[in-house]
């Protein structure tokens, strides 16, 4: 790792400083632009005649549903894909990039959700990877550490420069990735869903950094599903739909509703289905008492009725996922769980499935789906012993299960034999939904069911959840998106620091209340709460 890299790079702080002085003029100049860009993969055209200009010192948001062509456009901007037609222009001159290093040499940096960090190296080693500072034949560790500290401080990131990346939280990793990008002579920064894994405080720090980068004349492309963020941070907004550019307008002229309309191309008035809370005498399907997951969750008690949608709100790290993973036996736990009145020992997903309880993980790609396998084996994996009770696999039954998944959950894929990896996030989520519904569960636990999914698919998923409840199932929905919890759930449990601190019902289910409980401004003794 050490010693063989001798190319030293001037810390770009100087260069950015230089850029800053040169950026006094206000008129936006296009740093990076695409003109008449189209892109086809084989016979499928995914982008049609796109023209877009990223101006120095401006944040240009690119929004659109999953599959609208955002990622393809982004990859063309950074040179990972070559356009089928049209040109990419840097400072008005056509450029031909071939992937990451080329783009980065020109100051075009992409930050995306799949991190590009060496897990076993430290933060500073990652930031200087491939351009280590040296003094003679040796690494100049002191200087690298000092600069790393400066860049992390600019992000208000408290991670030590010597920490191993593998030991960092997801949000800290993102911060390191951003620090790495800003440490270079940055001209164009392209961010893909940067706040998806950040806490609100971290997101605020990121926005302050974006402001500083703007002041330094960096052109920023900002891709996000969170329209409130787009509204807050963007100067220009470009909306893509079905691979076409629908509109490019100043953010000031667009309300969030306008953006949603432009993205979807139809009314989204019924984003959330009408709430139909269960009657007070509906069966109690699940009764959890004093559930503890050592070190993570303490003494959680709640009940779940037939037809109910129970939300779990709280800050990231409040212990919501840990609670339900403990409940279904994916983590060691203590406490009492009664299923329809009878004590049950849920020691793992198999025992939970036997009790008709299923858990949809928040980690679609890591824990939910076999990405390299086709759709049918994924849909049937949980229910395989039901679908093929004999010794041999029943391919017909598996095909029928996939038919059901496609018909019921509107899974859209070009072909049936496509690897699940190639599906969009929304379709993957629907496939996971279809997978757990194959065992006809009575209790369905959704963990962040709409993370990274476009608004149209979100709407569909909300309706699936409401429909499941209407069919007499009970649902638990863990979500970090408050509007979702509020719009969908009949009751909301709020967690803070591993404890269940509030159970809201009826009119109390509102943003203010949830935030007060989640942040510790308000608390109630949840012991024995129904």
């Amino acid at each position, binding site marked *: 790792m050490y010693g063989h890299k001798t190319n030293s790079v001037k810390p770009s702080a100087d260069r950015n400083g230089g850029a800053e002085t040169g950026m006094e003029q206000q008129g936006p100049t296009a740093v990076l632009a695409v003109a008449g860009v189209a892109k086809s993969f084989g016979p499928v055209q*995914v982008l049609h005649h796109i023209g877009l200009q990223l101006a120095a010192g401006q944040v240009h948001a690119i929004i659109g549903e999953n599959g*609208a062509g955002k990622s393809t456009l982004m990859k063309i901007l950074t040179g990972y894909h070559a356009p089928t037609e049209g040109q990419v222009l840097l400072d008005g001159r056509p450029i031909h990039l071939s992937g990451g290093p080329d783009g980065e040499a020109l100051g075009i940096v992409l930050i995306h959700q799949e991190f590009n960090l060496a897990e076993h190296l430290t933060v500073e080693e990652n930031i200087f990877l491939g351009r280590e500072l040296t003094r003679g034949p040796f690494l100049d560790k002191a200087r690298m550490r000092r600069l790393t500290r400066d860049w992390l401080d600019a992000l208000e990131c408290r991670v030590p420069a010597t920490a191993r990346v593998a030991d960092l939280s997801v949000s800290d990793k993102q911060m390191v990735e951003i620090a790495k990008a800003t440490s270079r002579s940055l001209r164009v920064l392209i961010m893909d869903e940067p706040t998806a894994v950040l806490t609100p405080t971290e997101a605020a720090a990121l926005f302050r950094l974006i402001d500083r980068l703007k002041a330094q004349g960096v052109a920023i492309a900002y891709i996000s599903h969170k329209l409130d963020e787009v509204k807050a941070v963007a100067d220009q907004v470009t909306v893509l739909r079905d691979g076409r550019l629908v509109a490019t307008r100043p953010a000031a002229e667009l309300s969030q509703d306008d953006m949603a309309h432009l993205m979807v191309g139809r009314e989204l008035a019924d984003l959330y289905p009408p709430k139909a809370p269960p009657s007070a005498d509906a069966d109690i399907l699940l009764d959890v008492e004093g559930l503890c997951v050592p070190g993570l969750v303490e003494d959680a008690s709640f009940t779940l009725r037939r037809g109910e949608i129970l939300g779990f709100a709280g800050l990231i790290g409040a212990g919501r996922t840990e609670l339900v993973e403990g409940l279904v036996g994916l983590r060691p736990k203590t406490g009492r769980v009664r299923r329809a009145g009878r004590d049950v020992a849920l020691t793992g*997903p198999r025992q939970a499935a036997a009790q008709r309880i299923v858990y949809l993980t928040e980690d679609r790609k890591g*824990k*939910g*789906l076999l990405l390299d396998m086709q759709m049918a*084996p994924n849909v049937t994996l949980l229910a395989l012993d039901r679908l093929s009770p004999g010794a041999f696999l029943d391919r017909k039954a598996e095909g029928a299960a996939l038919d059901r998944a496609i018909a019921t959950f509107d899974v*859209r894929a070009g072909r049936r034999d496509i*690897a699940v990896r190639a599906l969009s996030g929304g379709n993957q989520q629907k496939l996971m939904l279809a997978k757990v519904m194959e065992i006809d569960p009575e209790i369905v636990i959704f963990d962040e069911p709409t993370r990274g999914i476009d608004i149209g698919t979100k709407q569909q998923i909300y309706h699936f959840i409401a429909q499941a409840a209407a069919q007499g199932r009970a649902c638990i929905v863990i979500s970090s998106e408050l509007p979702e919890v509020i719009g969908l759930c009949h009751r909301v449990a709020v967690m803070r620091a591993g404890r269940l601190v509030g159970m809201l019902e009826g009119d109390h289910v509102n943003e203010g209340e949830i935030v007060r409980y989640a942040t510790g401004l308000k608390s109630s003794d949840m012991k024995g709460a129904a």
Partner: protein
Amino acid sequence: MTAVPQPKPARAGFRIDLRLAAPLIALVALFILGALVNSAFLSTGNLTNVLTRSAFIAIIAVGATFVITAGGLDLSVGAMAAFVSGVMIIAMNWLMREFGAGWGTVVLGMLVGILVGAAAGLVNGLVITKGRIEAFIVTLGTMGIYRSLVTYLADGGTLSLNTQLRTVYRPVYYEGMLGIPWPLWVLSLVGAIGAMLLYFTRFGRYCFAIGSNEDVARYSAINIDRIKTLTYVLQGVCVAIACLIYVPRLGSASATTGLLWELEAITAVIIGGTALKGGYGRIGGSIIGAVTLALIGNIMNLSNMVSEYLNGAVQGLIIVAAVLLQRSIAARK
């Protein structure tokens, strides 16, 4: 929602085909090379001989396909083969005193062999799953244990089958049916049953799932420990079956029996297209891989161009080339 289809991996069908066909193409190429090098290569005698000798590794490789597909690894198969052979010989010699030098003794001894193989596999599987220890470490340990047990049982020398029994048992390796030696019949049967298990049963599907992503399998309510343990038991049984046809060949076992078979078996599996990191396995490929290895040795013996002492080097080159080829095929998607 949008109606825009996802970009499809170009020529996906072609990629899969090539992956399946590559080992077979290599085999055909070897046949042509062999025929060019020495006309004796294509003689029935030579080919039967080579194929029969490759049966041991091929049968073990069928078991290894399950282990590797499910994301595991078994380094102990060579030592296990020596151990099972040794115990089988001791058992047969002992049983002969009760049941005489006849088929009854041989069949009972075979049963003992199968049981010992299954038990040895079970030990591997249980230590790996219940002890939560890397398969590499566990089987490295049992490799030493099984081999030193043979040395101990043989008191540092060789365990020999009673000569009378040897006469009875000998045809199992040297004779056959319809002109095809028994080991090849056994290999066909093992291959057919293996393919059936891997491709057409829930067990096989779970092997793929666990090898692809153990977390997904766990969250999908699959009993991972049981499936993984079963793959090692199956591996043990395959080793024992290989021993059933190996013992009549020489009629003895010693500390050097089955030396480096684990490497040959793993090489055969990898040449055959199974992914070493798990999640994708080909039974037929593994058998072709074993035959390929045997043919390479044979061709080197028949030609004067390269010293047969370099056989190991060529096999080493082949495994590296096979993995490179797999990767370049995978990169095309």
